[in-house]
């Protein structure tokens, strides 16, 4: 478990004080993927660097698996850091070293003997899917491959925690997805706790269990990803959710003018996983026709989340039966928008 209590970082710049991280408290459970999202300047980058003291906190306490990181002497901190892997937006590989040598670097620091080191590097190269590229230099690799080297390097000493500092922000969408898949795979296989910071809601949606939203150095909202998606409280959170879901209310009125027969309903999917074939099921079991008007369903780690606006046509008793089926038998919420 990682507990963060009252963490504060104040930068002094030209006599001015900037509260980059402001009295921040969080608890992160073992084995979870915890996301911190915020716009640039929100303090998330400072926050993650406070966790392994790349940035010295002004006040507050960070405890990682029972070890008080903030109270540690420099030499103990060095040992503790070997248990905390970190990956970076710009990969930060040594250009003068090959893939294998880069991955071996943290093992050299930890004083792992030669033979063992070679063996471990080989395992790691395979783990991140870079077999055959061991002797390439970073300049010969693509961005995604570089980040794979970064991940292998971060995992070399079997850390219990992995910090990801905007790890996918410099990558294209497709590469981002493959790196995220790799992170999930590592999280599941090694039981590693992952803390990642990002400005992309897509990243949070795809791999995180829980999320904290940061603004002006403070966590303004936190919770299960699904919950935050469903009921964003703060304006900044709503904006992030829109990043993924789009803003649909705008064209709803227009829809209601065009589709006037039957009932137009909005279905809210909230972590539904058992009844993903809901639409076909209803049209099979009830005498209704379903016309999908608009919507967006997205998959989070805990099930489907999103809304569908559909038009249900048929005689009214069948329509109400279908609606009560959805209400009673599934976790999907129904909202009737228009009666014809």
């Amino acid at each position, binding site marked *: 478990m990682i507990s963060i209590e009252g963490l504060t970082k104040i930068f002094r710049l030209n006599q001015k004080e900037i509260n980059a991280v402001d009295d921040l408290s969080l608890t992160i459970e073992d084995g979870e993927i915890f996301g911190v999202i915020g716009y640039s300047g929100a303090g998330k980058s400072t926050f993650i660097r406070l966790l392994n003291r790349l940035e010295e906190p002004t006040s507050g306490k960070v405890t990682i698996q029972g070890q008080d990181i903030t109270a540690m002497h420099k030499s103990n901190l060095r040992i503790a*850091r070997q248990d905390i892997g*970190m990956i970076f937006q710009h990969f930060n590989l040594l250009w*003068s070293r090959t893939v294998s040598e880069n991955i071996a670097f943290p093992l050299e*620091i930890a004083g792992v003997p030669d033979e063992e080191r070679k063996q471990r590097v080989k395992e790691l190269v395979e783990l991140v899917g870079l077999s055959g590229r061991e002797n390439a230099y*970073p300049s010969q690799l693509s961005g995604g491959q570089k980040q794979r080297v970064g991940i292998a*390097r971060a995992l070399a*000493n079997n850390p219990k925690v992995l910090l990801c500092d905007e790890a996918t922000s410099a990558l294209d969408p497709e590469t981002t997805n493959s790196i995220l898949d790799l992170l999930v795979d590592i999280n599941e296989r090694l039981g590693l706790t992952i803390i990642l910071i990002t400005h992309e809601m897509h990243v949070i949606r795809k791999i995180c269990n829980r999320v904290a939203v940061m603004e002006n150095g403070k966590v303004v909202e936190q919770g299960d990803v699904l919950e935050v998606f469903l009921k964003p409280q703060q304006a900044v959170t709503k904006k992030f959710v829109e990043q993924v879901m789009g803003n649909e209310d705008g064209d709803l009125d227009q829809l209601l003018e065009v589709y006037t027969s039957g009932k137009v309903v909005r279905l809210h999917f909230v972590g539904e996983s058992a009844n993903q074939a809901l639409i076909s099921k209803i049209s099979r079991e009830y005498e209704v026709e379903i016309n999908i008007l608009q919507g967006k369903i997205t998959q989070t780690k805990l099930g489907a989340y999103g809304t569908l606006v559909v038009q249900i046509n048929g005689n009214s008793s069948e329509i109400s039966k279908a609606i009560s089926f959805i209400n009673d038998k599934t976790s999907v919420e129904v909202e009737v928008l228009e009666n014809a």
Partner: protein
Amino acid sequence: MLNELFPNVVIEDLLVATGETFYMTLLALVGSIIFGVILGLLLYLTSKGALWENKGLNIIVAAIVNIFRAIPFIILILLLIPFTTFLIGTFRGSNAALPALIIGSAPFYARLVEIGLREVDKGVIEAAQSMGAKTKTIIFKVLLPESMPALVSGATVTAIALIGYTAVAGVIGAGGLGDFAYYHGFVRRDFDVVFVCTVLIIIIVFIFQFIGDLITKKLDKR
């Protein structure tokens, strides 16, 4: 035919002088690299935001480097005569030129080292810190290897400056091609000797530049 074109050139003497130039340049280069890297590291590490940030030490090292870079070499070599005599036992000959050559060029190389170290990606240093690296590890496994092309090309520039300095060191009878050109050429009005010495120095400069470029190119994997 050589005898007709350069009647006053004695090949054997010329070879000895060339050997002396190489001897002084190479030894002084090794010394300059050692002291230059140490001073350059100190300049870099004590600067603002670096690993050993220390304003006082930084100012002291920078002052030493600047003072010795400011003194013209011809004056430096004369100023150092007592020191050289104390160290070597004499102030004449190739060995006696070495202290002045090293003290004259190490501060110059130190600045080039500092520039090279500044070019090292801060993120890479941070990554090494996040892995729990000691400062020693960061110096020897990150800073120096990552700046190696700059260090080598800096050493090349320094070597060429040193070739010039060895010629100046002729004033204390250091030997080498500069000394030879002056005493055996200019003083005797045998300008063919001056000409041949000049050509040889140019060739030596080209050789150093060529080797330096070759190593830099081979090291640079960016």
